[in-house]
C-alpha cells in the first residue's frame, strides 16, 4: 500500500489523526531503538504493531524504501496469515512503515515478523523484477483517475522537492540486487526505529519484544545521484466532469488551525456547490503544509464552481463565526475518533505523529490543540493564505462525441 503523505482530510474516511482525549496518553519507553509507545486497549485480545524507520530515499534512488517493502511483502503476508493476522506497508514522507495486527497472544511472533523487516534483504533478480513492476503500477495509478491526477499535480506544485514514494522511471533503472543491499545499509539505523503498539498489551512486554534489533549492515555509503522527473505530467485523465484543484502553502501555520480551516472550507463549498463533489484537505508532510481543495463539477456547473473555489477564502471569512468554528473543530475531533477505532488505525495515527514530532503524546496534543482553535485563529490563517498565490490545477471534462450510425 502506498501512502504518499500524511493527509488530514477534513472528513470521514481518510487518514485522519487520532483522538486520544478519552484515553490516557500512551506509555512510552526508550527501547534499544528510538521509541516504544503503547496504547492499552484491553477490550479485545488483539494487538496492532506499527514499526517505522525514519529514512529518506537516498538521492537518485527515489522509491528505494517502498521497493524494499514490496520485496518483503509476500513473505510478511504468508507469515502473518499463519496467525490469522494482517500486514500493511506504507511509505510516508517521513518513514518506511510496517504494520501488523493479530491476536495479542501472538505478540512475540508478530514482533519477530516486524524485526525481520530490519535485516539486510537478500534479493533475487526475479523478486526485484516483480517488485519493480508493482512500483511501476503504483506510479501509474497515482495519475490514472481524475481525483488522483489532480492531487498529484497539486502536490507537485506545492511540494516541488517531494518525489513519489513509488519513485521515478529514472530511479527505477538504478535498482539492482547489489544496489538494494547498499541502499538498505544507508537507510537503516536502529535508533531511527520506533514502535507503536495498540491493543491488549503492556509496555514492558512490547519493550522486551523489540529489545534487540538487527545490527546495521557494515557499509552504508551510496553514491549520491541526481533525481529526475518528467518535465510534463502524463496526459490528463478521461473524465466526464471538470476537475479543479486549488492549494495554498501553509508552511508556517498552526497545524490544528489548518485542519479546522479545511473542514470549514469543505462545508462552506459544499453548501455553495450542492451538486459538485467537494473535498478540502490538510496536507502535512515534512516538506511543509498545505490547504488543498479538490472539486469535481458537471460541465454546466463548472464556471460557477471555478468562481466559488477561486473566491472561497474570502467568502468563507465572510460567513465565519465562533459557532461554526467550534462545530468544525468538534467535527474534526469526532472524525479522528471514528477513524482510530480500529487498533491498526490508532497505531497509524499515533505513529505518524511520533514520526514527525518524535514525542509519544504528539497525537494527543494535536487533538487537544484542535479543540482550542477559535474564530480568531481561523481568520488569521485565512488572511495569511489569502496573501499567497495558490497552486491551481484545472482538468476540463472530456468531450464525448455522439456518433449516430
Amino acid at each position, binding site marked *: 500500500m502506498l501512502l504518499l503523505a500524511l493527509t488530514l482530510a477534513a472528513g470521514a474516511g481518510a487518514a485522519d489523526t487520532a483522538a486520544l482525549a478519552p484515553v490516557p496518553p500512551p506509555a512510552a519507553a526508550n527501547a534499544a531503538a528510538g521509541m516504544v509507545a503503547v496504547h492499552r486497549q484491553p477490550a479485545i485480545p488483539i494487538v496492532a504493531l506499527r514499526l517505522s524507520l525514519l529514512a529518506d530515499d537516498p538521492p537518485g534512488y527515489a522509491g528505494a524504501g517502498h521497493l524494499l517493502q514490496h520485496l518483503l511483502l509476500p513473505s510478511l503476508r504468508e507469515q502473518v496469515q499463519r496467525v490469522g493476522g494482517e500486514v500493511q506497508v506504507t511509505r510516508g514522507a517521513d518513514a518506511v512503515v510496517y504494520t501488523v495486527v493479530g491476536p*495479542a497472544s501472538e505478540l512475540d511472533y508478530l514482533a519477530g515478523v516486524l524485526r525481520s523487516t530490519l535485516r539486510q534483504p537478500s534479493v533475487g533478480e526475479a523478486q526485484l523484477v516483480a517488485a519493480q513492476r508493482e512500483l511501476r503500477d503504483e506510479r501509474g495509478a497515482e495519475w490514472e483517475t481524475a481525483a488522483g491526477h489532480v492531487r498529484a499535480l497539486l502536490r507537485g506544485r506545492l511540494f516541488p522537492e517531494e518525489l513519489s514514494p513509488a519513485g521515478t522511471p529514472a530511479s527505477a533503472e538504478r535498482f539492482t540486487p547489489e544496489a538494494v543491499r547498499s541502499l538498505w545499509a544507508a537507510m537503516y539505523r536502529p535508533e531511527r526505529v520506533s514502535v507503536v503498539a495498540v491493543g491488549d498489551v503492556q509496555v514492558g512486554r512490547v519493550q522486551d519484544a523489540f529489545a534487540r534489533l538487527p545490527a546495521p549492515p557494515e557499509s552504508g555509503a551510496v553514491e549520491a545521484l541526481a533525481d529526475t522527473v518528467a518535465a510534463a505530467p502524463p496526459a490528463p485523465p478521461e473524465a466526464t466532469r471538470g476537475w479543479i484543484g486549488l492549494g495554498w502553502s501553509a508552511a508556517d501555520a498552526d497545524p490544528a488551525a489548518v485542519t479546522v480551516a479545511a473542514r470549514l472550507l469543505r462545508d462552506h463549498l459544499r453548501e455553495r456547490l450542492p451538486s459538485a463533489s467537494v473535498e478540502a484537505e490538510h496536507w502535512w508532510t515534512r516538506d511543509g503544509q498545505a490547504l488543498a481543495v479538490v472539486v469535481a463539477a458537471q460541465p454546466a456547473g463548472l464556471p460557477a464552481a471555478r468562481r466559488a473555489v477561486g473566491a472561497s477564502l474570502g467568502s468563507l471569512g465572510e460567513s465565519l463565526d465562533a459557532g461554526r468554528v467550534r462545530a468544525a473543530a468538534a467535527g474534526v475531533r469526532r472524525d479522528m475518533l471514528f477513524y482510530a477505532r480500529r487498533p491498526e488505525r490508532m497505531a497509524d495515527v499515533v505513529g505518524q505523529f511520533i514520526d514527525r514530532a518524535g514525542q509519544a503524546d504528539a497525537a494527543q496534543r494535536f487533538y487537544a490543540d484542535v479543540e482550542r482553535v477559535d474564530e480568531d485563529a481561523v481568520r488569521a490563517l485565512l488572511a495569511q493564505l489569502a496573501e499567497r498565490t495558490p497552486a491551481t490545477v484545472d482538468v476540463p471534462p472530456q468531450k464525448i462525441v455522439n456518433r449516430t450510425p
Partner: protein
Amino acid sequence: MTRALLFRAALAALATLPPAAGTLRAQDHVVVRPEPGTPVVAVEVLVAAGPAEETPEQAGLAYLTARVATAPIRPILDSLGAHLTVQAHKDALGFTLTAAPDAWQEASRTLLVALFRDPADSLAAVRERAALRAELIGREASPADALAREVDAAVFGPEHPWRRPAAGFSTTVEKLTLADVDGFIRSYLVPERTVAAVVGPVDAAAAREHLAAFLRGSPWQAPRAEPPAPVESPVRREYSSITAWIAASYPFPPDVDEEAVRMLGELAVEGLSFGPSRRSVYNARAEVVRRAEGGELRIQIVVPPREVDAWAGRIDEAVSRHAEGRMAPSLFADRVRRFRGLRLRELDTPEARAQEAARELFVGAQGRLADLERLDADRLLAAARALRPATLVVLGPFVDGTPAAND
C-alpha cells in the same frame, strides 16, 4: 508467560470484565460492555421485525420502514459526527450507531425517538422507496443475490416468510405506501420488541439508564419463528451467467457450539478456495447465521458450469470430513491458531462487538466470545456432527442439458 496462557488470561478478562463491571440482565433487554480504552461508543439496536410481519405483497416493508424512520435524523447525526447503518435481517432490523463519547447519548436518543415516537415522514417515505427500489433492481441482476434468494426459498420452504429477502423485491417495494409504513411503525417498532447493546468508554449504570428510559416497563418479547420446511435437495435453477454458483446450507440446533461451527466453515472454505490444485474456483465463502431456534452454516462457491457436479460433491466433503474423526493435534493447533486471529479481527471495531452482544441477547446465547479460548478438536468434531443434512442449491447455465429440478 506462554502464549497460550496470555491468550487465556486476555480472553478471561474479556469474558469477565463486562459482567463484573456492568453487563446487565437479559430481561432488561439492554447489555453494556464498558471499554475504557476504546475511542468511540457503539450502540446496536435490534428490533424483532422482518418478513414474518409482512404479507408477501408487502415484502420489504420492514426494511423500508427502518429507512424511512431514520432518514429525517441523518442530518442531525451528521452534525454530531455520528454514523448510522441500517440492516435488514430475517428476524430483526438492526440499527448500528457509532459516535464520539461526548455525542453518543444525544445521537442514541435521537435514534430511539425516531424509532419509537416519531410518525412516518411522507417525503422520506417517497425518497426512500425510490432509492430502495433502484438498489433492489441493481441487486436483483446479480447472480450472488439470485443464489441467496434461491437458497432461502429452498432452506425455509415455499410458505415460510423467510423465503423472501428481508429487503424485499423491487416490484413489491414500489407499491408500498406511507400508510403501510406508518402502520408498521406503530405495530412493530416498539420497545417490547427491542434489545440494545452499548460498547465503549461509558459508565455502565448511566448507559443502561439512558437506554432503559426508552424501554422501561416493556417486557421483552423474544422472537418466535415458524420452523423451516426445506424442499428436497438438490435444487438446480437455470440462470444466465458465465459461472455457476453453488450453495450448501447446513442447519444447526440452538445449543450448537457456534465458534466451532465458524471454525468449521473457515476450514471448509480453506479447502475449497482457489489454490494450486483448485484453479477453477473463482470464489468461496462461508457464513454463520445464528437465530433463536438455531441457525445455519452456509457455504458458497463459484465455479465453471462444466464442473458443477464435481464441486457440489466437494462442498459436502469439505464439511463432512470433519465429522469423521478428531483432527490430529498438531494440525488442529495450526488451524485454530489461524482461526482465532481471523475471528478476533472480525470483532476489532466497537460496532462489531456491539452487534455481537446485541445478537447474543436477542437469541438468548451466553458468552460465546469466551468459548474461543477453549476451542479444541473435540468441540470441532461435535459441531461437525451436530450439523443437519445440507440443502444444496445450484444456479447457472447447465451445459449438460440436464433439466432444472424442482421446477
